[in-house]
C-alpha cells in the first residue's frame, strides 16, 4: 500500500486547502454538467434536464462531503473544524475563557509543583548509566534496616556475590578545604573504591574515572558544578594538581553535570580514592575492623540477573558470613533497592508527607474544576437555544457533546500550560527554603519531562471530567422548549441541581483547606514563640575547620583561643566564644552516660557540645548553679556543665554539682547547671545536654564538621563580620571560612518545617477560599439572573427590597451551611494526620476550628450579598419586560 501518496495528498490538502476544495468543486460540477448536457441532447429543456440530474443523483454537496470523508486525515480535518468553531466561540466570550484558564492554571499549577517534588525525590533515577541495574546495598541488624558496611564485609560481598558484576564502596561525605582562585572554600566530597566510576557507568564530562591501579594514588575527580565555579570550567584541567586540605591531588576527570553522588539528596562535589581518607579525616577510627560500619555500598546487577535471584544469593551469603564471623556487629542479612531511592529509614515518613501534600493540591484542583464546571453549566444553559437549533438542523447529540468537550479540553490545556509556567515560578520559590542540616544537601526541584507529561494528562482529565458533566446535562434539551428560548435548567427550587452539588462540594473542600491552613499558620506562629533557651538575635557565627589544614588538636585550641581574644577586643563586640556546633542545627553528637557510683542511674542519650570560655554569656543561656568554664587544663580532670533536663533525669533529689558522669570510661565532673535549650529541632521536648570543655576533649573526640566562632555584637553586624573575617585570615590566610550567618538567619532556617508547611498550606488555603467564593458568587449570580422575572413580580406585588435580598442571601447561606458541616467533619479527621508536623498546638485546635468556618461563612455572605444587591436594585418593570 503506497502510504506516501496518501500522506502527500493529506499534506497537499493541509497546505493548499482552498485550491484543493476549488478543484474538487469543479470536478464534481463538471460531472453534473455532462449529465445535464446529455439530457439536453436527448431533447429536454435545460431547466428540466437539471431537475432530472438532481433527482437522479445525490446533490453535489453530499458527493463532495463523501470525498472529504474518504480523504486521508478526515478525522483530523473535522477535528480542526471543531477546534476552529470553538476558538471563534471563545473569542466572543473572552472573559469566560480567561476566567476558566486562570482558575485551572491555579489548580494545575499547584499540582504540578507538588508533583515536581514527587518526581525529583521519588521517581527520578540517579544520573548514572543504566540506573535500573544499579542497586544500593544495606545491611540489616536485628532485621532492622539499614546500616553501612564494614570494610571486610564489603570485600566479602565484592569477592563472593555472583549476582553483581561490580560492587563499589564509598565513604558518604568528607569535608575538605579546596584551594584555587581566591580564598579557600569548604567543599564536601566522597572517598570511593577505585571501581566506583566503572560500577556507576558515568559518562564523564572530561577525562576519566579512577583506574584500578589508582586505589592509593593522590588523584581526584571534580564535580561538574565545582569545576565550573572554582576552575572556570577549565577544559585543560585534567592532569593539573589541585590543593585539597593542603594536599596536592591530580585531577583525572570531571563528573557529568547533575551528578553529585549516587544518593540524590547529599551534595558531594568531589571524589577521591579511599586511601586518601586518612589524610582528609585523621583519627577516623579502625577502618578495617569488622565492627566498624562506615561504608556505603552500591552494586551493578550482572546482566540477566533478576533482583529476586540476587536476593536469594545474598541471603545465603549473609548466613555464611554470620557463621564465619560471630564477632561482627552484623547478624541478619542484606537488603538492596534501586540506587538513588529515598533513604530507607525516612522513606515512609516522606511518602506520607508527599501524599498529604498531593491530596491537598488535588483538593485545590477539585475546587478549581468545580468552578469551571459551574461556569460551563451557566454558559451552556445560555446556549440552549443554539443547541436546539443545531439539533433541529440535523446535528447529532454526540457531535454537540463532542464539540463541548473539545472546548473544555482546549481551555483545560491552556490552563495546564499556564499552570506549568506558574509551577516554574513556584519551584524557584521552594528553593528559597534552606534546610538546617550539618551536611550539604541538594534539594533543588525543577520542572522536568515527567512533570510536563503529568500536567498534560491532568489537564486533559480535568477538561474531560469538568466538561463532560455539564455537557451531558445540557445536550439533551427538548427541542420544542429550546427553540422558544426557554431554559431547561431554569426550573427553580431544586436544591440538588448539578450546579449546587458542585458548589457545595467545593465549599466543603475549602473548609478542609482553610482548617489545615489555620492549623499550620497557628503552628508557625507558636513555633516562633517557642522558648529556645538562648539569644535569638545579636549574634554572628562563622565556621573554620583547621583540622583540614593539618592543625593538631593542641594547635587548633591554641588558634581558637588566640582568635577569641582578638575578636573579643574588636570594637562593637560584646563577647566572643567558640564551640563545635550551634544548637538547632538538626542534631549534633550525642552519647549515653552513667552516674559514677550509682550504676543504676544511666541516661540513654545526652546532647554533646564542646565549648570555649564565655560560651553561656555569649550565646545567652542563663546559669542556674555552679560556675562556667574558664581556661581548663587540657590534661586536668574533665569538667562538664549540664542542663536542667539532664539534672531532672539523673539527679532528682541530689545536688548535681560535683557528681561524676562516665561515658565509656571517660569521666566528667559536673561543675555547673544551665537552663534548657532546644538542641536539635524546635519541636522537640527539652533534651538532656552536656557541655564539655573544648580544650579538654578536642584531642579525644574531634569534630568532623569544623568549629564555630560565636560573636555577640552591639551594633553594625556587617562591620563586625568583616572584622572577624579579617582576624581569621590575619592568623591563617589559608583557612576556609564557611557557614557565616547571623543567629536570626540560623533560626529562620531552623523554622524551616513550620515555615514551609505554613507557606504551602497558606497558599493553598487562600487559593481554595478565593476559588470557592468566586464559585458561590457565580452560582448565586446566575440564580438571580434566571429568577429576574420572579423577582420583578415579587417587587411589583409589593415585596420589600430587604425581603428580596434576604431571599438571595438565604439561598446562598443554605448552600454554605450544607457544605460546612461535612467539610468540618472531614477537616477534623484529616487534622490527625498532621499531629507530628504541628508545633505547640493540638491538631484539634479549638480556635482554628471555630474561626475557619466562621471566616468562610463571612466570605460566603459577601459572595451572596453582591448578587442580592443586584437583584434588589432591579426596577420591577425592567424585570417583567425581561424577555
Amino acid at each position, binding site marked *: 500500500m503506497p502510504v506516501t501518496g496518501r500522506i502527500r495528498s493529506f499534506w497537499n490538502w493541509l497546505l493548499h486547502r482552498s485550491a484543493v476544495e476549488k478543484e474538487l468543486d469543479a470536478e464534481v460540477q*463538471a460531472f453534473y454538467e455532462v449529465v445535464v448536457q446529455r439530457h439536453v441532447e436527448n431533447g429536454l429543456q435545460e431547466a428540466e434536464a437539471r431537475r432530472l440530474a438532481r433527482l437522479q443523483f445525490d446533490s453535489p454537496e453530499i458527493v463532495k462531503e463523501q*470525498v472529504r470523508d474518504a480523504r486521508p486525515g478526515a478525522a483530523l480535518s473535522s477535528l480542526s473544524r471543531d477546534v476552529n468553531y470553538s476558538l471563534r466561540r471563545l473569542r466572543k466570550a473572552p472573559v469566560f475563557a480567561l476566567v476558566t484558564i486562570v482558575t485551572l492554571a491555579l489548580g494545575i499549577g499547584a499540582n504540578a509543583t507538588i508533583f515536581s517534588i514527587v518526581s525529583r525525590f521519588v521517581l527520578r533515577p540517579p544520573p548514572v548509566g543504566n540506573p535500573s541495574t544499579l542497586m544500593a546495598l544495606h545491611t540489616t541488624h536485628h532485621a532492622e534496616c539499614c546500616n553501612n558496611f564494614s570494610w571486610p564485609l564489603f570485600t566479602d560481598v565484592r569477592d563472593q556475590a555472583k549476582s553483581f558484576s561490580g560492587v563499589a564502596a564509598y565513604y558518604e561525605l568528607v569535608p575538605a578545604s579546596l584551594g584555587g582562585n581566591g580564598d579557600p572554600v569548604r567543599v564536601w566530597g566522597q572517598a570511593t573504591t577505585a571501581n566506583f566510576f566503572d560500577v556507576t557507568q558515568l559518562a564523564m564530562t572530561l577525562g576519566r574515572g579512577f583506574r584500578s591501579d589508582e586505589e592509593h594514588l593522590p588523584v581526584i575527580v571534580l564535580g561538574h558544578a565545582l569545576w565550573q565555579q572554582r576552575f572556570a570550567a577549565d577544559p585543560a584541567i585534567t592532569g593539573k594538581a589541585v590543593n585539597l586540605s593542603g594536599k596536592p591531588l591530580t585531577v583525572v576527570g570531571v563528573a557529568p553535570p547533575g551528578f553529585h553522588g549516587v544518593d540524590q539528596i547529599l551534595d558531594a562535589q568531589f571524589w577521591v580514592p579511599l586511601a586518601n581518607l586518612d589524610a582528609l579525616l585523621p583519627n577516623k577510627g579502625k577502618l578495617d575492623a569488622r565492627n566498624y560500619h562506615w561504608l556505603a555500598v552500591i552494586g551493578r546487577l550482572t546482566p540477566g540477573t533478576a533482583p529476586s535471584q540476587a536476593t536469594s544469593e545474598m541471603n545465603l551469603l549473609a548466613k555464611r558470613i554470620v557463621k564465619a564471623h560471630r564477632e561482627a556487629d552484623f547478624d541478619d542479612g542484606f537488603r538492596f533497592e534501586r540506587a538513588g531511592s529515598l533513604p530507607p529509614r525516612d522513606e515512609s515518613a516522606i511518602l506520607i508527607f508527599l501524599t498529604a501534600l498531593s491530596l491537598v493540591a488535588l483538593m485545590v484542583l477539585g475546587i478549581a474544576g468545580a468552578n469551571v464546571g459551574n461556569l460551563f453549566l451557566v454558559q451552556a444553559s445560555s446556549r440552549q437555544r443554539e443547541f436546539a437549533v443545531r439539533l433541529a438542523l440535523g446535528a447529532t447529540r454526540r457531535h454537540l457533546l463532542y464539540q463541548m468537550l473539545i472546548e473544555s479540553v482546549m481551555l483545560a490545556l491552556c490552563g495546564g500550560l499556564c499552570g506549568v509556567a506558574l509551577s516554574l515560578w513556584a519551584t524557584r520559590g521552594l528553593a528559597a527554603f534552606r534546610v538546617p542540616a550539618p551536611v550539604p544537601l541538594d534539594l533543588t526541584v525543577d520542572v522536568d519531562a515527567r512533570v510536563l507529561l503529568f500536567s498534560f494528562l491532568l489537564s486533559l482529565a480535568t477538561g474531560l471530567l469538568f466538561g463532560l458533566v455539564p455537557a451531558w446535562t445540557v445536550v439533551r434539551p427538548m427541542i420544542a422548549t429550546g427553540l422558544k428560548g426557554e431554559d431547561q435548567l431554569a426550573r427553580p427550587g431544586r436544591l440538588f441541581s448539578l450546579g449546587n452539588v458542585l458548589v457545595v462540594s467545593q465549599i466543603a473542600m475549602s473548609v478542609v483547606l482553610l482548617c489545615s491552613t489555620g492549623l499550620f499558620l497557628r503552628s508557625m506562629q507558636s513555633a516562633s514563640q517557642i522558648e529556645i533557651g538562648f539569644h535569638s538575635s545579636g549574634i554572628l557565627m562563622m565556621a573554620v575547620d583547621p583540622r583540614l589544614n593539618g592543625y593538631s588538636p593542641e594547635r587548633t585550641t591554641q588558634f581558637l583561643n588566640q582568635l577569641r581574644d582578638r575578636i573579643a577586643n574588636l570594637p562593637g563586640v560584646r563577647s566572643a566564644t567558640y564551640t563545635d556546633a550551634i544548637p538547632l542545627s538538626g542534631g549534633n553528637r550525642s552519647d549515653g552516660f552513667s552516674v559514677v557510683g550509682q550504676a543504676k542511674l544511666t541516661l540513654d542519650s545526652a546532647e554533646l557540645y564542646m565549648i570555649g570560655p564565655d560560651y553561656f554569656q555569649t550565646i545567652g543561656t542563663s546559669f542556674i548553679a555552679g560556675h562556667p568554664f574558664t581556661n581548663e587544663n587540657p590534661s586536668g580532670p574533665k569538667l562538664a556543665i549540664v542542663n536542667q533536663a539532664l539534672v531532672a533525669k539523673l539527679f532528682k533529689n541530689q545536688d548535681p554539682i560535683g557528681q561524676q558522669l562516665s561515658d565509656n570510661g571517660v569521666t566528667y565532673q559536673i561543675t555547673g547547671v544551665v537552663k534548657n535549650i532546644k538542641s536539635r529541632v524546635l519541636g522537640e521536648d527539652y533534651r538532656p545536654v552536656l557541655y564539655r570543655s573544648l580544650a579538654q576533649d578536642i584531642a579525644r573526640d574531634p569534630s568532623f564538621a569544623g568549629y564555630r566562632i560565636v560573636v555577640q555584637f552591639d551594633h553594625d553586624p556587617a562591620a563586625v563580620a568583616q572584622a572577624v573575617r579579617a582576624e581569621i585570615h590575619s592568623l591563617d590566610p589559608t583557612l576556609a571560612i564557611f557557614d557565616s550567618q547571623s543567629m536570626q538567619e540560623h533560626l529562620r532556617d531552623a523554622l524551616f518545617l513550620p515555615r514551609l508547611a505554613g507557606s504551602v498550606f497558606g497558599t493553598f488555603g487562600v487559593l481554595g477560599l478565593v476559588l470557592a467564593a468566586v464559585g458561590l458568587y457565580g452560582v448565586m449570580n446566575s440564580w438571580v439572573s434566571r429568577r429576574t422575572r420572579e423577582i420583578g413580580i415579587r417587587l411589583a406585588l409589593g415585596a420589600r427590597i430587604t425581603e428580596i435580598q434576604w431571599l438571595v442571601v438565604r439561598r446562598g447561606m443554605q448552600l454554605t451551611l450544607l457544605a460546612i458541616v461535612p467539610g468540618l467533619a472531614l477537616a477534623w479527621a484529616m487534622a490527625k494526620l498532621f499531629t507530628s508536623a504541628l508545633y505547640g498546638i493540638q491538631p484539634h485546635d479549638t480556635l482554628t476550628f471555630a474561626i475557619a468556618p466562621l471566616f468562610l461563612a463571612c466570605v460566603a455572605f459577601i459572595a451572596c450579598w453582591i448578587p442580592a444587591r443586584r437583584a434588589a436594585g432591579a426596577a420591577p418593570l425592567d424585570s417583567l419586560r425581561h424577555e
Partner: protein
Amino acid sequence: MGKSADLLQGTLDLLILRTLEFGPLHGVGIADRVEQLSRGVFVVGPGSLFPALHRLADNGWITGEWSETESKRRVKTYTITTSGRTQLVEEKRNWKKVFTAMNRVLAEEV
C-alpha cells in the same frame, strides 16, 4: 438503483481501473462504461465514484487532467498509470482467486 447489485468492498477500484485500461475517460464516461460492461448490473453514482477516484489518485494508480469534450465542455479525464496497470494485473489475479474459490464453495454438495 435497487436493480443494481451491491459492490463488494474494493471491487469498485478494480472496475474503474479496468474501464480505464482502454483509454482515458471522464467521470460520466467511467460510470457509463461500468454500466455498459456489466450489462446494467452495476450502476455507479457520483457519491461512490468520486471518493474512489480520489483514493486511486492518492495511491498513484490514476492521474486526472482537465480537458475538453467534443462539445467544448471542460471536464476532468482520468488516465491509468503504469503502477495502476501493475495494480490492475494484481487485482485481476486476486479476483479470479476469490471467484474460483467462491464458486467451488457454492458448487460443493453438502
